[in-house]
């Protein structure tokens, strides 16, 4: 077993006191930046790069990887407690997680997020260790046609988040699609919906919309209610940590979330957001009590949180084996490799095996550290909710504003943030769900660009989506997801009428 021997060697590298300390530093810092909205791992690693230039590369990469994982652990905290996603991969977590927090189960939501992240991170690392070449092949199978089919499949997940009123949900989705159109078209360079405002040429940042709709919208809504001080939030109800029932309901979503997230991370246009949509949808479909979704179903936290951490593990696969960056953070890591004159790719495993295997071993250790770091904190964080609401929501507004400003140092983004915030307030006030809007924004852009790329390559031949086997398979799954429930309903109705007739 070559791999096992190399891995053992890697552990020998990773458990030296110096490297353990780098790992601890990275994971701690990562958790902190994950909690702050707007500040992500890409920005932090970029800031650290010049400082680490003189370090031993193994130590530096151990720290960077810990930081990347840590950001995903931390980002769930504010999603759950304050309805303010720390990173875009945790948007879906806010949907169920925040309801749980309002029901007094915030600590349990934080715990299932932390343990789910641990399970996903560890399984993802195992997949890197043993299955990396397989996933690299899978990632390269995806061309524009396959991506478009995948986006179609992802769009079906919207149905899980539409809420009670179909027309309101669809309105929210279309709003997101329209916001996604704003900016310069990638394929032709033409400005769309920019109204001659230069700052709109680059499009509207997803983080601005997410923070505006969730955090600012929520704060404005709270402020608009006369009973603001009535203390509707119950800090803790029942056991602080997860009950046996909650454990039972969490472990399967953790595993399914991991299985969805890891391959997505390895895809060159994957990212951490889409697998969280898919995971939420899957959990709602698989649940015996789908009516609990939207009212604080723990599955809706456990699945997506596992998915975003597994996606981070997936990102490392094409980066280490092909030198192919699939996320902004991966691109910075690639620059870090170059800083040490290392070329990621097939040759890296042989030329720098100490570094690669030390890094992989440190991922296992980092995940354990993050679990130890985050589980006890869950009980501590949840006390945030005991802060009087006017102060709490004032704080949320402050951090949202700072976070969004730190994205691009753009005052225009701040104007947008509060405009979107007012929109978020109106949507809450009139019972429009906000999640479909975010999904439309993220998927709309990607789906359009990939659709047009596929048609450009095929010279306008639309059958390309059906002649590529992988694309066809994904479209068939999407169709089944859509038609399946209708068929069941039709059959149930038929059985019902047969019974009444008989």
């Amino acid at each position, binding site marked *: 077993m070559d791999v096992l021997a190399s891995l053992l060697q890697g552990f020998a590298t990773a458990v030296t006191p110096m490297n353990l*300390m780098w790992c601890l*530093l990275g994971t701690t*810092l990562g958790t902190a930046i994950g909690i702050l909205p707007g*500040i992500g791992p*890409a*920005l932090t690693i*970029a*800031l*650290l*790069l*010049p*400082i680490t*230039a*003189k*370090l031993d590369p193994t130590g530096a990469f151990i720290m960077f990887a810990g930081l990347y994982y840590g950001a995903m652990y931390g980002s769930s905290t504010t999603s759950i407690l304050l309805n303010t996603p720390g990173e875009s991969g945790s948007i879906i977590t806010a949907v169920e997680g925040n309801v749980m927090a309002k029901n007094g189960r915030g600590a349990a939501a934080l715990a299932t997020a932390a343990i789910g992240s641990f399970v996903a991170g560890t399984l993802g690392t195992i997949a890197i260790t043993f299955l990396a070449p397989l996933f690299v092949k899978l990632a*390269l199978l*995806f*061309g*524009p046609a396959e991506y478009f089919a995948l986006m179609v499949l992802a769009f079906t997940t919207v149905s899980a988040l539409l809420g009670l009123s179909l027309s309101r949900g669809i309105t929210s989705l279309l709003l997101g699609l329209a916001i996604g159109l704003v*900016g*310069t*078209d*990638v394929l*032709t*360079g033409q400005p769309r919906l920019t109204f001659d405002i*230069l*700052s709109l*040429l*680059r*499009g509207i940042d997803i983080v601005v919309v997410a923070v505006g709709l969730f955090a600012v919208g929520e704060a404005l809504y709270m402020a608009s209610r006369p009973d603001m001080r009535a203390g509707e939030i119950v800090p803790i109800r029942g056991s602080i940590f997860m009950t046996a029932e909650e454990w039972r309901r969490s472990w399967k979503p953790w595993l399914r979330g991991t299985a969805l997230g890891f391959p997505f991370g390895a895809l*060159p*246009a994957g990212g951490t957001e889409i697998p969280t949509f898919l995971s939420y949808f899957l959990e709602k479909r698989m649940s015996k009590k789908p009516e609990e979704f939207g009212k604080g179903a723990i599955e809706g936290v456990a699945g997506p949180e596992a998915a975003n951490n597994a996606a981070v593990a997936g990102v490392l696969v*094409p980066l280490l084996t*092909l*030198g*192919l*960056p699939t996320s*902004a953070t*991966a*691109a*910075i890591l*690639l*620059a870090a490799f*170059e*800083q040490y*004159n290392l070329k*990621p*790719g*097939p*040759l890296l495993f042989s030329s720098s095996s100490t570094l690669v295997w030390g890094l992989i071993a440190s991922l296992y250790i980092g995940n354990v550290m993050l679990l130890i770091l985050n589980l006890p904190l869950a009980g501590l964080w949840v006390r945030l909710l005991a802060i009087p609401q006017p102060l709490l929501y004032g704080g949320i507004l402050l951090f949202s504003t700072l976070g969004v*400003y*730190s994205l*691009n*140092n*753009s*005052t*225009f983004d701040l104007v947008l943030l509060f405009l979107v915030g007012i929109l978020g307030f109106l949507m809450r006030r009139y019972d429009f769900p906000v999640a479909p809007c975010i999904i439309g924004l993220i998927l709309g852009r990607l789906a359009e660009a990939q659709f047009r790329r596929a048609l*450009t*390559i095929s*010279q306008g031949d639309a059958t390309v989506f059906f002649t590529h086997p992988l694309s066809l398979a994904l479209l068939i799954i999407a169709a089944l997801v859509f038609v399946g429930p209708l068929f069941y309903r039709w059959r149930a109705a038929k059985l019902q009428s047969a019974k009444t007739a008989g």
Partner: protein
Amino acid sequence: MNRRTLIASAVALLLAGGLSLNLASTPALALDELRIIAPAAPGGGWDQTARAMQEAVQSGGAVKAVTVENIPGAGGTVGLAQLAGQEQGKDNVLMVNGLVMVGAILTNKSAVTLENTTPIARLTGEYEVIVVPGSSELKTLADLVAKLKADPGAVAWGGGSAGGTDHILAGLVAKASGADVSKLNYVPFSGGGEALAAVMGGHVVAGISGYSEWEGQIKSGELRALGISAPERVAGIDIPTLKEQGVDVELANWRAIVAPPGLNDEQKKALLATVDAAVKSDSWKKVLAAKNWTDLYLPGDDFTKLVASENARVTEILKGIGLVQ
């Protein structure tokens, strides 16, 4: 002190204080903060240039915190619009640009042009490679040219943004091969990573990029280089030129650095001095050697003149190959 520098210093304190790191002593600070805009997604040539410049400036210790900001889209004209718009008059912002942006401004009919910037210096140049996947049936440039002549649309090219250097080279090669240039099938991707994946996965027939971006994959055999757009063979790169294979095309993709409009002479001089010091640093020289970038450093007014002449040349080329009416 804004949030970024706050984090940077917090991190630096953590590292330096907690771990007693031996950080290089820093001379008097000219600037608190310098922001370098890379008007492309992370991973591409402009991003690499911006990050190399970031390291070089930081290595001199003249600036406390140097950050790189990625503003991708439309051949860099999105970033250009921001530079000319909300960054106007700021003397602590630089933006990487180059030949790609000259072309993109024309094809996108951008309202903002390079005249709305303060030119600082041309930095480097790089030649372009034409590649196919390692498993492709096309073995030589002649094979590709033959396929192109037979049906230009059947050759889907993957590369950078519309009207950029990659797009221009595809047009030039098609024209020089005697193929119908108006049927050129070019697929723009934003950022090097996505285009690389499309070529490696065989989703496009051929790919075009600067040599350094795909060097690793060419050396490992994942990609096969068919030709390089240099006037003659480049030392250390074992790829035949397009010219020696009978395709009479040469193209250098130069990269430069500019500042926002609305700066006075003093501010311009200070930025030029910062860049000048960075270009003469060991860190910069190391990057040039490691990435096979040719040093084409051309500061100040000479660079301003070059922008004007290149603009004229690119306009002519783009009109000739039908990318601009």
